[in-house]
């Protein structure tokens, strides 16, 4: 995957995160984990992944869902399955 493509995925994942959890661009920088924001609990996690799947038009395998607990993990998974 090219650097541009990786950067694009990174940005889109963070924008989705910001949209789902009502955050500003500055608040979604860096590696964030589930529990970092009050809204990123188990329900927020599902909502985030639903949005990520819609954003990228992909489907995560069921057994991956519980592992995607950080932005880095989500970005890597999107790169893998997109």
């Amino acid at each position: 995957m090219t650097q541009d493509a990786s950067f694009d995925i990174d940005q889109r994942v963070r924008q989705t995160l910001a949209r789902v959890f009502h955050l500003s661009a500055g608040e979604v920088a860096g590696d964030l984990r589930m529990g970092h924001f009050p809204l990123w609990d188990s329900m927020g996690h599902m909502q985030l992944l639903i949005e990520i799947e819609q954003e990228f038009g992909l489907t995560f395998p069921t057994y991956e869902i519980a592992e995607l607990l950080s932005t880095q993990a989500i970005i890597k998974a999107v790169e893998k399955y997109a």
Partner: protein
Amino acid sequence: MQLLRNSISSIDFLLLVPVLVCIVASALVSLLPRLRSRYGLLTISLLATAAVYRRAMLGYVLINLATYLFVTGLAQIPIGSQPQKQQRWRWSIAAMLVLLLVFLAGRYYELETRPVPSLGVTVFYFSLNMWAFLRLITLLWEFGSGRVEKPSLFAFLTWIGLPFTLIGPILRYSQFQQQLSLVNERPKTERTLSGQWWRRFFFAAGQVSVGLLLTGFLVSLSSSEIVWPHWEKLAISFSLAPWSFYLLWAGYFKFMEGLAMFWGLNLPPSFNRPFGRSNLSEFWASWNMTATSVFRDYFFYNRWGLSRFNLYFNALIVFLMVGVWHGLNGYWVLWGLLHGIGFCAYLWYRANKQRLATWQHRVLDAPLRFAGPIATYLYVCSCWFLPPAILKLIR
């Protein structure tokens, strides 16, 4: 004195024996350096399992070995390509479904209470309690998803026989495997017995003691000849019974966490002050966490073959399964459904509260902050203590 007798007699034998076994297991490993080896730990694990399960030991070992043999067979499928990974995953799902059916059949036909005479001794050929069931499910899931490789027989037997997890909490194989290599580098006893350890020990002892006293008190009340008015009975049930149950189990699991440290094992925490949480979601995120996290990771985060996730459907499924995990009868099914409905109500509120105007937020915020913990506590207790009329209907 009667209260003390009631408290002691109310100790579930299921808790007392594991506690004693774990104390002995921890002491042995601490005092006898020769036991600090893989075979030493395996031997203690198997002896501990025999002490806890006794005549059901054979049944317990049989079901675990059957699962291990399945995993061994499935490990023959290489997972170099995506289709092969999918194949292993599908076989693992099939195995989980079979295990679930076996678990439910065991509950329905009460197989764990049916001994079989064999060579002059009565043994139980079936033993799959709620903890063993959930533990094996985690192995099948983790192996099927590729998170863990096939465990060696030594590691598997040590894991299923770990004295600190025989009746909870859940330590998934991936969590055990990470620590297995460190078990051989166990900390010295003096380092384990730190100030923090003693604080944890006395806290756990306090929880168990208060839980026992409350249980004894409730037993005294129920066996006394006093006829309590309905509202007073309700108040006692809602105030004392949940706390007695919670303190007993929270204390027990905290004991296990502390004793496991002598083996160099860190068990994940089980409770995080569940009473007083402001909504059902926070309650369940704080109650029996090692078990609820399994239901969350495997069943709530699940598509169930649908093209899209449906959180309401998932919530109902999860709580129904949690109910059935406790018991296959009308009470637990209804209990699960009630929690599922409550959880769905919270999901709906959470999804729609953004639509409220700011002034409506301000009006509702303060009362909700106050009423939330009370309403959550009352709802949880109501699900436990169903009215007699409803209990009659579901029996």
